[in-house]
């Protein structure tokens, strides 16, 4: 039997138990109890054809190591083929790029850019997120006017009036085999591409107490929805059961205890990989490993800024997009990259809140206003308000091999 996290803490540290009791934390009912079994079970029934039970919090025996530092940056702008310098999201596959902007979707293949916008049938020119289904070479495009599927040169659009899409303002899209998850302004929804059926989740049939969904993360057996004002809700996709993660102090203006839960209930993005769940908020970043929460801010961890719009998880490492630059957070070490006025890049390495090194690179991302980040083994794509930047790293020495993903 798996112990509940709060019970584990209590057994492991009596001192912590006293502190928690003083704060009233232990008096709070679990989300399932607070809502009652009936409420917690609502939404059961969708997506029953799933693989056997797995523990999403089980870290791999040999976790992927992403010990990476960037040393140069190159930027792509309108002159290179982008329809706008406001780049909102990016996905990279080999040399191919799928780039969302506020003026349409730009795709670079074999060095040639193709732009798809409203005139081509895209739901809206403002693209908020892109997800790829490499099996079918399909690009799912979340926009402020609906969801579009771009496949084989054809564009098919789903809206709330002609499909099961919860709302036309789609903030995030995620592909999980035949399922396409969407986070919208008025609920989350899942399209089963085999049957064409939709499953909708909102405050009426799930644990989320507000329907304002911002982000989707898919993991083994679980899906997480980042909810604006509602923290993170988790669905066990085998049982359909819901669980909610929220800041336990219940106050928006403070974080009473530093690492007792999500840093804030206003979730901007969620990401998951290898047993770690990451939450982006406009107040910092939080990490959950199935037992413990840990939060990171500019003041105590070296983040370039607390207004975090996007996070990407790879192994035990998190890439952080903020309005003051981007950062790579691994363990207790945060390496941040911010643009100097002269076009160089200030890098800072902070470990356990203490600055260790600060260096300057000759090139920098196009802007510190970073909206999306897409890391790979040896490079990173950075969507900014002034163009798309490619961050590169010197290949590792042959004598220091890295585990490959």
């Amino acid at each position: 039997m798996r112990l509940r996290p709060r019970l584990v803490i209590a057994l492991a540290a009596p001192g912590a138990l006293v502190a928690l009791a003083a704060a009233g934390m232990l008096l709070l009912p679990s989300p399932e109890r607070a809502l009652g079994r009936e409420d917690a079970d609502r939404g059961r029934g969708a997506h029953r054809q799933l693989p056997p039970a797995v523990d999403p919090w089980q870290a791999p025996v040999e976790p992927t190591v992403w010990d990476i530092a960037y040393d140069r940056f190159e930027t792509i702008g309108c002159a290179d083929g982008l329809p706008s310098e406001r780049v909102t999201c990016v996905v990279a596959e080999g040399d191919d790029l799928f780039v969302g902007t506020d003026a349409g979707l730009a795709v670079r293949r074999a060095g040639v850019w193709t732009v798809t916008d409203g005139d081509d049938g895209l739901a809206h020119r403002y693209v908020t997120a892109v997800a790829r289904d490499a099996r079918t070479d399909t690009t799912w495009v979340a926009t402020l006017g609906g969801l579009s599927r771009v496949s084989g040169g054809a564009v098919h659009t789903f809206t709330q009036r002609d499909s099961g899409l919860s709302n036309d303002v789609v903030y995030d899209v995620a592909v999980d085999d035949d399922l396409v998850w969407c986070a919208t302004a008025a609920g989350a929804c899942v399209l089963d591409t085999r049957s064409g059926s939709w499953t909708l989740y909102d405050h009426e049939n799930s644990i989320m107490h507000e329907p304002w969904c911002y982000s989707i993360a898919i993991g083994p057996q679980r899906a997480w929805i980042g909810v604006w004002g509602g923290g993170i809700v988790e669905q066990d996709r085998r049982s359909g059961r819901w669980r909610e993660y929220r800041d336990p102090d219940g106050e928006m203006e403070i974080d009473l205890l530093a690492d007792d839960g999500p840093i804030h209930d206003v979730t901007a993005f969620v990401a998951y990989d290898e047993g770690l769940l990451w939450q982006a908020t406009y107040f910092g970043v939080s990490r959950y490993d199935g037992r413990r929460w840990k939060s990171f801010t500019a003041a105590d961890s070296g983040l370039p800024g607390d207004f975090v719009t996007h996070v990407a998880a790879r192994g035990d490492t998190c890439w952080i997009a903020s309005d003051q630059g981007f950062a790579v957070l691994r363990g207790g070490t945060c390496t941040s990259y911010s643009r100097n006025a002269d076009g160089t890049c200030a890098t800072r390495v902070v470990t356990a809140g203490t600055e260790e090194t600060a260096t300057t690179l000759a090139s920098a991302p196009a802007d510190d206003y970073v909206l999306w980040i897409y890391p790979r083994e040896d490079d990173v794509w950075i969507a900014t308000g002034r163009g798309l930047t490619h961050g590169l790293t010197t290949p590792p020495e042959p004598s220091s091999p890295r585990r490959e993903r």
Partner: protein
Amino acid sequence: MVRTPVLLLAAAVAGAVALGADLRAQESEANGNRQRYARTPDALVPYRRTGTPARRFFTEPPAFRGPGRTSTAPSGLRAVRLGVLAPLTGIDAAAGRNMVRGVRLALEEANASGGFGARALPFEMVVRDENASWGAAADAGVELLGEHGVWGLIGGYEDANTHVLARVLLKLEVPTINSAGVDPTLTEHNVPWLVRVRPDDRQAAYRLVRRVFEVDGCRRVVLFRANSRYGRTGTAEFRQAARRLHRPILLETRYEERESAWGARMERIRALEPDAVVLWGRPRATGAALRELRRAGIDCPAYGPDRAVGPGFVETAGAAAEGFVFAYPFDPDSDAPRWRGFRDTYQQRFGALPDPTAAYSYDAARLLVAATRRAGLNRVRIRDELFASSTVAGVAGAIQLDVTGNSVSPVILGHVEDGRLVFDD
């Protein structure tokens, strides 16, 4: 043997004095001290006995650090459009009409005084219904910017819609002023595009808490609220405040907008023998709840927020409305010259007296016009102008904005007397 009651009495008196001092601290906070979030009285500060929070948020104004301050307006503009998102249909349609009227009046005056810029471009409003469909506020925000190129927005009324709108604002980057929302969490997300000019339900709760517990000395309080998001978020601050004062709510129970089965609820409330009932909901439903309380023989004092006493409250409650105490954002019977001037102009223009929604919408439109005139046609700079002020001159008095851009202006109390709303402060 006699000492124990005496000691208890002394402790109670000392506690009451301390409670009063703590609650009155709210007034001192109003003048200059912007460190105390939301002008929260000492006694109501969350976890104040637990220790210093690990982190405090909302200590600085939300910043927008993205590009856009140097972009120029497109050529060939024939008007400066501002969007209005209001409930034009549904249960709040009357409030939506008043929002539109307030904005209309402000824009008419702005155009009469020269419009915008050297070419005297007229200000125009584009109105959309926030209740048109599920999540309509998001779609409307996208349409207002994408198709109409609005330079700023005013709205919405229902707070769930405004929350939806706020998230779109972050993507669209449109400066927005909320003139009607009362949900305290509306500005608690760090989105640097939304300002609210009317006091929220937190301020109403603080004022009512003081009246209920300190002035009227109530101890056994029941919370009777609408079974809606408005009822839930509106009462949250009151419930927490009561708990922090060691006067936890005896019972929280709910009524529907068109409630018909009152019996069981009334039995539960009556069995508790409350000395106060706090109601929180829309006017007609709250009026009906109050009427049923009295019919059930529950005659203790009753209290509520300003939305509860909107049109239809007194008519629905009938004689049961007498004595109902409510919080209100300002005194609409005031003879202050500025308010009187607005009230007369509004009445002349629309044939009706303005309510707080109309007044704050008028203020919001004037604020947006002034910011646009100062900043020029650049949405980021207009945003900067909106967040630069901590005090705004409203028609009903100065509007105090905290660092989040939220109004923390003190509210007043009133009561129902002879079927009329009478304002006490």
